[in-house]
């Protein structure tokens, strides 16, 4: 099997990831932050180690790192904790359902700005034009999960700061791949742990800007202030009710450690793979490639004349290629996402 579905989840993981998960389950599987015995304290140390590594990677403070189950969970925490019914936000035209469904459930109104290929300034101007006096936030993906194109999120964050509104970023396709400085001011960054950060599934991260004060929407045991019926004020415990995924977070720590150590070479390799993939696919008669390798993460969407994308994905599956069938209309392309470890000759 040639695995080309890394936009859904990266695979395989570095050896350190699965060994960290296994070690946690076998050797120090206590409940972190709940007790004072050796195994619980050891589990707390694993959690804090991962938190500190993430803070280092994203240039923020450990207490601003909130562990979640996945990017969707993080986006729900941010959207439902920071926005109110009737609020207006500006979104990109390429948002995932992990953004659109929480916005809909939270009864938030939206206007979609334009994405102008290879013109960041024009894209930012489109967002700016869509902002009204009622706008509370820009909610934008860092990189499209379909076309791979990268949004000028730093400029959009600056625009939000200038306008005095929130900035919520879906970094599902960029965390661990593109540089991110999270946790500033009124910005929140949401990401999975199991894609570019190379951690196991069931892990995700919300980075909260230090000026934010979101409402909680999951309350429960935190191991602190247990005589109170309200969640603790302290971050991150305030937003992490319930027993965390300690084995997963330990594995995520190993993944982040790998990214911190090898991130530059991963990026260089992916750039080579991306350009080669575009070039080779475009050379095949009847194959239509969407987007451009410029200003893109390593996701490529394409289709074959006369075939539905599901048919293309099925045929590739039969040939031993794992791809994603993308459900958008029109056009419905097949998306393949290259991997951090693959050699360009493959």
């Amino acid at each position: 099997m040639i695995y080309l579905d890394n936009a859904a989840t990266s695979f395989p993981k570095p050896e350190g990831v699965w060994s960290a998960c296994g070690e946690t389950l076998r050797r120090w599987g206590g409940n972190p932050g709940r007790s004072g015995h050796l195994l619980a304290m050891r589990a707390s140390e694993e959690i804090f180690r991962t938190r500190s590594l993430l803070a280092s990677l994203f240039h923020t403070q450990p207490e601003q790192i909130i562990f979640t189950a996945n990017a969707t969970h993080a986006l729900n925490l941010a959207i439902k904790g920071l926005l109110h019914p009737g609020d207006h936000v500006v979104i990109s035209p390429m948002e995932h359902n992990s953004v659109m469904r929480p916005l809909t459930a939270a009864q938030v109104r939206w206007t979609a700005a334009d994405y102008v290929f290879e013109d960041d300034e024009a894209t930012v101007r489109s967002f700016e034009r869509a902002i009204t006096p009622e706008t509370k936030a820009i909610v934008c993906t860092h990189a499209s999960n379909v076309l791979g194109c990268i949004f000028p999120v730093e400029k959009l964050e600056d625009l939000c700061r200038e306008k005095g509104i929130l900035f919520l970023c879906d970094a599902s396709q960029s965390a661990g791949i593109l540089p991110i400085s999270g946790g500033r001011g009124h910005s929140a960054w949401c990401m999975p742990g199991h894609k570019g950060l190379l951690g196991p599934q069931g892990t995700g991260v919300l980075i909260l800007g230090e000026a934010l004060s979101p409402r909680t929407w999951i309350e429960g045991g935190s191991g602190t202030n247990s005589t109170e019926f309200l969640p603790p004020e302290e971050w991150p415990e305030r937003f992490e009710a319930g027993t965390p995924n300690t084995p997963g977070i330990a594995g995520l720590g190993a993944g982040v450690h790998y990214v911190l150590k090898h991130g530059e070479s991963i990026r260089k390799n992916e750039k080579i793979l991306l350009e080669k993939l575009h070039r080779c696919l475009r050379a095949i008669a009847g194959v239509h490639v969407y987007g451009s390798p410029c200003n893109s993460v390593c996701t490529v969407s394409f289709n074959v004349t006369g075939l539905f994308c599901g048919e293309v994905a099925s045929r590739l599956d039969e040939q031993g290629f794992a791809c994603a069938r993308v459900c958008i209309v029109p056009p419905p392309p097949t998306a393949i996402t290259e991997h951090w470890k693959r050699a360009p000759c493959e």
Partner: protein
Amino acid sequence: MTDLPQDKGVLLLFSSVTGAQRCRQRLEEQGMESLLVKLDRHIAGTSCDYCLRISAADSYKALETVKTFPHRPRSVYSDEETPQKIKWK
């Protein structure tokens, strides 16, 4: 301002384990060692708190240092058989 006994270590109490870990990390950056413990049996009424145990050698400097941290201990006790609450700020 502190009434810390000269020959005693201190226990810094935090409401959250991450708060204690962050404080320990910052103290380490300044060359001070501390041990994260959960001392339910020592201090009544703090069963959910976490402590940083700091040796007598570092205790005065540590108390002066943590005053500048964003996450300060909720309270401070002397590290002895019957811990006493210490005035420290």
